[in-house]
């Protein structure tokens, strides 16, 4: 019963928060509602017994990713509302709605999966974090290491991309679009 109530509270709040994220004109609102939605999603993970995943969701998404977004937003002009031109709003909602309907239809159909084999069964008497650790460092060791390297590479890339010319103000000065002549000069300089 608690599960039932919890699920619906989480479900309704995530849908509303994400709708705000998608439809809001204000970047700050969108980001805040996104963060809230992610917190709610971690609630689903706790409900599903994936405690560790829920914690990771909170730390990585709500903590790290959202913090990154928050820092990034400092570079951009976020006080104004985002002005966007919507070419064909009907088509967008039609497609999205169609997709939603199709998903609902597919998932509400009885699942034919009785003969699926369990690949990594949850061992009884072991906590979720331990179980995750066991599987992660045995079966998924190589992907785990690859993911680690990927994160490292992403970090380096992020630093280099964002870190160049940090001393210049981004919001006030506008770099001129590189024209043909100066492009040639740059090439010449580089070749020297």
């Amino acid at each position, binding site marked *: 019963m608690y599960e039932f109530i919890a699920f619906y509270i989480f479900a309704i709040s995530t849908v509303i928060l994400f709708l705000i994220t998608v439809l809001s004109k204000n970047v700050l609102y969108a980001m805040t509602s996104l963060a809230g939605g992610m917190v709610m999603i971690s609630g689903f993970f706790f409900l599903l017994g994936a405690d560790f995943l829920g914690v990771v969701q909170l730390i990585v998404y709500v903590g790290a990713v959202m913090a990154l977004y928050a820092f990034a937003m400092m570079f951009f002009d976020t006080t104004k509302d985002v002005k966007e031109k919507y070419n064909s709003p009907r088509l*967008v909602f039609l497609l999205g709605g169609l997709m939603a309907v199709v998903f609902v239809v597919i998932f509400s159909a009885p699942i034919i999966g009785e003969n699926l084999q369990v690949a990594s069964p949850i061992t009884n008497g072991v906590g979720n974090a331990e179980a995750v650790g066991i599987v992660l460092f045995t079966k998924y060791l190589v992907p785990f290491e690859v993911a680690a390297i990927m994160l490292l590479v992403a970090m380096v890339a992020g630093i280099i991309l964002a870190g160049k010319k940090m001393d210049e103000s981004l919001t006030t000065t506008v770099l001129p679009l590189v024209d043909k002549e100066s492009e040639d000069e740059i090439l010449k300089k580089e070749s020297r």
Partner: protein
Amino acid sequence: MEKLVYIALFAPFVGSLFAGLFFARSPKNIIVGVVNPALIFISWLASVALAFHVAEHGAIHVTMMDWISAGALHIPFGFVVDEVSVTMMVVVTTVSTVVHIYSNGYMDHDKSFNRFFSYLSAFVFSMMILVMSDNFAGLFIGWEGVGVCSWLLIGFWYHKKDVTPDINPAISPSYAANEAFIMNRIADLGMLVGIFLIYWNVGSLQYDVVFKELPHLEDGILVAIAIALFIGAMGKSAQFPLHTWLTDAMEGPTPVSALIHAATMVTAGVFLVIRANPLYSLDAVSDVSYFIAALGTFVAFFAASMALVNRDLKRIIAYSTLSQLGYMFAAAGLGAYWIALFHLAAHAFFKALLFLGAGNVMHAMDDELDIFKMGGLKKVMRGTYLYMGIASLALAGLPPLAGYFSKDAIIETAFNEGTYVLWFALVFTAGLTAFYSFRQVFLTFDGEERYKRFGFHPHEMYRYVLVAMSPLAILAIIAGWFQDSFHEFIIKLLPEYEMSHHTHHNAWWLGLLVLFFAVSGIIIAYKKYARKGDKAFKQDKKVESGFFYKLLMNQYYIPAFYVEFIVKPYTAISDKFWAIDKAVVDATVDFIAKVIYKTGDSSRVIQNGNLSSYLNWMGIGAVLLILASAIAVVMG
């Protein structure tokens, strides 16, 4: 021995590739002029060695590889060297060797010297395949190969402009080449039908299998096969009514005329009939055989009559070739296959010699061919005069030269078969032959020196060329002396043909009669054309405006007839079909192209460079995919 077969066959091929691949675009290269004749000479050596081998040990049959193996059709790439093919091989390589060396001199100043040798050697290779193949498919390949080479070589000077027929009856080399090729297409269709009929009814194309099966076939089919194959032979050997291409083929360089249009390729038709002798000697097809003989006789006379008045040096020889081919067909049709082959060989030697002599004259006279503009050339061209004299004597059939033995045997055959009409026509034609060949010799070499009036400065050909021609001259003299040994050699394969007792009895006066006609022909020619001074030859307007003169001069109006009644209606029909083609076929193709073009043009707007709209398109695609999978789930 197998190696010799391959050497004989592939040496010319190597020569062709050598000249074609390495020197096609380079200017005249003397290496080509040495290597190619040398390779042909090697082929000749191998052929002669094979001839001795065959004489002692019998035929050699080699299968190089499987060539076509499809379902029940099985054609190996095989060659047979027996008495008939080895005779042809020796004849072909002998003439080819001489012609190759001769071409060195004749094509001396031509800028396409290397190309010429490449084609010429390719021709020899094709001809070798033709004569050596052990099945009809291989024969057909060689048959088409020589056709292509003939086309290439007739049109060798393709850059010459088209002119009207009254300036040059052949219009231009490329026109003549196309004419020859297209005429041969007509005939080759017949040949193909014949081959298909053989395959349908016998299930094989190997000579030995086919000839063994022939007597078990129905008469109608045999007649059909015989007719179809003979149509092919008619085209290649330029028999009436497909004869017009041969004289126009004289547009090619003279060595080509000597090799292809006198000695070898045009005799392929005769070779085919000889090769298929088990078919043509069957009782069921005796009517066809008789028709062959009759047609041959007719062509012999018909061509000789046109040669009487012609003024073009090479065309006269071309007509005489036609005429002699007629003789060969007459012999083959009457069942005297070995005599036909004998005449083929002898004719090849003296006719090639005649052509090469004509080439010397052309070379001396700056490519002038009108014999009325020559005369008295013997002073400056002694060697050529000698050669052409020998060749003409041989052609006229005077003893003891080659033509006497072979042609006499054919005429005797006609008598022996009791076909007296044919016999008399052949005898009379022998007289005409003597007349026109000496008319040409005398007009060229004797009489008044008319060339001076036209400002020519004739000079003799290079000495080495004259020396190279000597083997042909010797063969033209002595080839006939080996009649008996050739007979003994060849009847191991070809059916024996014996003169009856009655003929044997009358042989002496028959021979004398032919000789009488021949000699009187020569004497008339001498009186009319060879004298000087008051009795010197003058063009006679009265004769030239006569009906017969005009008829003969215009080749019985047959080319004109073809143009009026075949070429022009065909062009008209083609124009109509072209219009239909444009309206239906082209329009359909264009429509498809337009649809695709329009589609592309209208869908180009998708590429507007806006990432967001790309995302939209991707979204549409994703939704469609999910829909499809949903439908699959619901259905499944």
